């Protein structure tokens, strides 16, 4: 009671700062786990490594409730429209961790069906190397996201508006000659896959 007489019971700060403080300590991950990295993701959430210490233990399997997508594992081209659709379904503000060698670069799977890094199709904030990464590395990635939020975050998420250009590596598809390339687009806005004409 004595202290309330000495200090004011209000605090002057920036709204952005408060928003960042709150957001970064309650990241809700969307576990997009497609391969063995998903096992490490589960281990990170389990009691031994306990990602709850950093406030992101609330994994939700509905993208509508999440703000941190963790892509753990290889992604094949059939999965890309699904991944993009899930990413678009997540509410703002949201961030993305590319976990493991396969999600970041395709890893050893340089084959006809595996995409060479998810950053070719969705924006990625933090990459985690490793095959699979240790849970400590994933916790480090969450801490990096927290630092990124506290440095760049804004109350109304206007920092994302500046990221209007493609952030991934140079497209491998451009290395192919036009007559050799086959265009097979997936349309995430209407459906997960393009509909084939009936007959």
């Amino acid at each position: 009671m004595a202290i309330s007489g000495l200090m004011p019971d209000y605090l002057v700060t920036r709204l952005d700062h408060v928003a960042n403080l709150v957001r970064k300590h309650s990241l809700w991950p969307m576990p997009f786990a497609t391969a063995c990295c998903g096992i490490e993701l589960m281990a990170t959430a389990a009691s031994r490594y306990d990602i709850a210490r950093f406030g992101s233990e609330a994994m939700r399997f509905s993208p509508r409730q999440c703000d941190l997508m963790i892509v753990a594992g290889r992604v094949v081209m059939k999965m890309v429209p699904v991944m993009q659709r899930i990413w678009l379904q997540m509410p703002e503000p949201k961030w993305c961790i590319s976990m493991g060698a396969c999600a970041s670069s395709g890893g050893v799977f340089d084959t006809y069906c595996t995409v060479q890094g998810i950053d070719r199709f969705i924006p990625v904030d933090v990459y985690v190397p490793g095959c699979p990464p240790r849970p400590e590395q994933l916790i480090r990635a969450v801490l990096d996201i927290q630092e990124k939020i506290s440095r760049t975050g804004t109350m109304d998420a206007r920092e994302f508006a500046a990221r209007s250009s493609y952030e991934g590596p140079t497209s491998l598809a451009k290395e192919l000659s036009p007559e050799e390339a086959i265009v097979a687009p997936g349309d995430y806005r209407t459906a997960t896959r393009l509909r084939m004409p009936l007959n």
Partner: protein
Amino acid sequence: MTYIDTLNARFSGAFAISAFRGQNRVSIDAHKAPVVLFDMLKCLKMDCGFDFLCDIAGIDYLNYPNAADRYGVVYALVNTTTGERLFVRAFANDPEPELPSVMALWQGANWMEREVFDMFGIRFDGHPDLRRILMPSEFTAFPLRKDYPLRGYGERHNFQTITRSES
């Protein structure tokens, strides 16, 4: 009377038989396979006890030494009474490799034939729903053919990219 005798009696001259590590393999040439294959598998199922179709696998023999036909489709049969196994290999050739569907004998051949079609482009006559099963439906090539490049023709990079500001 073993199944080899039965096959010899009914399909004499239509197939070749060889053994590898105690297991028999039956081969049917490409020009005989469309006619003989279904009847032979039916005979093996109904009369010889090979009642279980374990697997269907495709092979591309392009640039393979001493290969006469390009594609091979291997039917792995099991006799569930004796545990005996038999591999029946039917060949097919370009430009339109085609074999009869065995779905009338084993319903489980449905997805296996779709997989062989997806990967090798071998069509199965009489299959009710011959669509791609592993690759996306708009995929145009057959990726396990030997003349298809390992890294593909760039299909995997032809999706729309989402930037951060628009998502």
